[in-house]
C-alpha cells in the first residue's frame, strides 16, 4: 500500500486529527489520503478509498464528468475556479445516499509532490436546522396573521355591539386580555395540549377561594388542544363578564359554580349561577351570547344551551376534546 501524505509526521498528523473530513487527491485524480472523519462521513475506510479515483467515491454520478473535466482543465491551464473557496455541494455516501457538504480545496506541495487537499464537512444537520427554522418562521407568520385577524374580528364585532367608545374600550380590552392569557398558557405548553384548569384558574383567579368564595370549581385535570383552549377562554370570559355585570358575581349572595367532566369522550361543562332573585331571560341577544353560539358551533363543533331560573342560570357546553380538527 502506498504511504499516505497524512502519515507525514508533522502536518499529516495534524490533518489526521482534524474535526473535518480531510482528503488528499493526487494531481491525476486518485485518492492518496483519507482521515478518520472522512471514513465516518462517507462510509469508506482509507484502505477502501486509497488509490481509487475521487470521482468514483464521493461524487454523485451526475457531477462526475464535470469533476473530471475541471481537473483536466486545471492540469492544462492552471485555472482552478473551485480552488481556495468555500463551496456547498452534494456528496455521495458509501450506502448510496446523498448529503450536503461544505468543501474547500487547496493545492499544496507540503508533502513533496503537489497534491490537492480537501476539507469537507457534512452540513446535513445545518441544512435541517435551517429548514426547521424556515418552517417555524412560516408557522409563526401564519399564526400571527391569524391572530391579527381574530383581533380585528373581535374589534369589529365589539364596536358593532358597543353604544359608546368607553364601553367599547372596556369590552375590547377585557377580551384581548383573556385571549392574551390563553396564549400565555399555550406558549407555556409549547402550543401543544394545555390544561383546562390553568385557563379556568387564570380567568377566575381574582375571586378568592375558601368556603365563603362566590366561585367554586370542580372538575378533573385534562388537557385541551390549542383551538379548544382558546375557544373555551373566550366563552368563559363572556360568562364571567356577564356574571360580574348582571349575574352571580354582581350582587352579595350570588354564586358561580363551574363544573366539568369527561363522559364517553365528551367534555361537559356547566356554568351555574345562583343566589339571585327575579332573573329573567334577556329578550335580545348581545355580543356575548352570539359570540358564544358562534364559537361553540364553529370552533368547538359542540353544543350549548342556557337554562334560565328565577335565582340564576345554568349554561351547558359539550364538545369532543379529542376531535382531529382541533
Amino acid at each position: 500500500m502506498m504511504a499516505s501524505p497524512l502519515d507525514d509526521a508533522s502536518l499529516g498528523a495534524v490533518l489526521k486529527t482534524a474535526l473535518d473530513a480531510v482528503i488528499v487527491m493526487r494531481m491525476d485524480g486518485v485518492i492518496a489520503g483519507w482521515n478518520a472523519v472522512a471514513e465516518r462521513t462517507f462510509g469508506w475506510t482509507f484502505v477502501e478509498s486509497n488509490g481509487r479515483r475521487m470521482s468514483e467515491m464521493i461524487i454523485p454520478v451526475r457531477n462526475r464528468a464535470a469533476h473530471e473535466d475541471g481537473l483536466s482543465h486545471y492540469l492544462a491551464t492552471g485555472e482552478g475556479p473551485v480552488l481556495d473557496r468555500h463551496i456547498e455541494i452534494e456528496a455521495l455516501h458509501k450506502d448510496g445516499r446523498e448529503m450536503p457538504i461544505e468543501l474547500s480545496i487547496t493545492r499544496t506541495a507540503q508533502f513533496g509532490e503537489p497534491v490537492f487537499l480537501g476539507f469537507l464537512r457534512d452540513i446535513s444537520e445545518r441544512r435541517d436546522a435551517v429548514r426547521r427554522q424556515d418552517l417555524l418562521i412560516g408557522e409563526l407568520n401564519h399564526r400571527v396573521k391569524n391572530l391579527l385577524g381574530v383581533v380585528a374580528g373581535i374589534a369589529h364585532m365589539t364596536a358593532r355591539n358597543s353604544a359608546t367608545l368607553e364601553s367599547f374600550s372596556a369590552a375590547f380590552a377585557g377580551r384581548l386580555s383573556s385571549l392574551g392569557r390563553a396564549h400565555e398558557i399555550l406558549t407555556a405548553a409549547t402550543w401543544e395540549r394545555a390544561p383546562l384548569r390553568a385557563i379556568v384558574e387564570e380567568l377566575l383567579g381574582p375571586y378568592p377561594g375558601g368556603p365563603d368564595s362566590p366561585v367554586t370549581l370542580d372538575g378533573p385535570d385534562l388537557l385541551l388542544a390549542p383551538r379548544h383552549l382558546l375557544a373555551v377562554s373566550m366563552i368563559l370570559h363572556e360568562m364571567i363578564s356577564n356574571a360580574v355585570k348582571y349575574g352571580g358575581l354582581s350582587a352579595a349572595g350570588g354564586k358561580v359554580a363551574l363544573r366539568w367532566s369527561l363522559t364517553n369522550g365528551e367534555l361537559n361543562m356547566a356554568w351555574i349561577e345562583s343566589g339571585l332573585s327575579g332573573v329573567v331571560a334577556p329578550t335580545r341577544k348581545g355580543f356575548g351570547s352570539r359570540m358564544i353560539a358562534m364559537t361553540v358551533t364553529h370552533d368547538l363543533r359542540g353544543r350549548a344551551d342556557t337554562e334560565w331560573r328565577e335565582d340564576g342560570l345554568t349554561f351547558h357546553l359539550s364538545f369532543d376534546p379529542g376531535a382531529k380538527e382541533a
Partner: protein
Amino acid sequence: MPGLVSLSPSRRAAPPHASVVAEGREAIALAMRVLVVEDEAMIAWMMESLLQDMGFSDIVVVSSGEDAVEMATDLLPGLILSDINLGTAGMDGVEAVMSIAQRGVVPTLFISGYASEETRDRIRRQVPGAGVPRKPVDAETLRLAVTRVLSVSGRN
C-alpha cells in the same frame, strides 16, 4: 363603469333588503348566496358582518373544507370567500374550492394571513381568476376584492 359590478361604499348603510332595491347587475350580485369558509369563529363573524354591510344578505358560514364541499352541492353559492389554511386536519381552502369547481366554477377570494409564493402559484394554476387578499382584511379591501372578482367572472 360599464360591464363592472360596483358595490359602492355607500351601500355600507344599506338595509337588509338592499339586494331588492339595487339595480341591474349589482342587484344580481347582492342577491347571490355567499359561502364563507373560515375556521376562526371571530374572523368568520366579521366576514359575515362586512358582507352584510356591502348588501349581501344570503351568507352561509362553514368552518372546514369538507363542510364547504358538502354545503356547496346544495346551496350553489355565487361567491366563495375562503381561508387557505383551515386548521391542522382535512382539506385546505384551495382543495375545497377546486372540488366545488368540478360542478361549476364559482368566483372565489382566498383570504389568508400568509400565502407563500408556492401557494399563490398553486392558486394561479388551479383556481385562475381568484383573488388573494391578505388577513386581516378591512371593509374597503374586501369590497374592492369582491367587486373585482365578480367583474372578472361577469366578463368571462
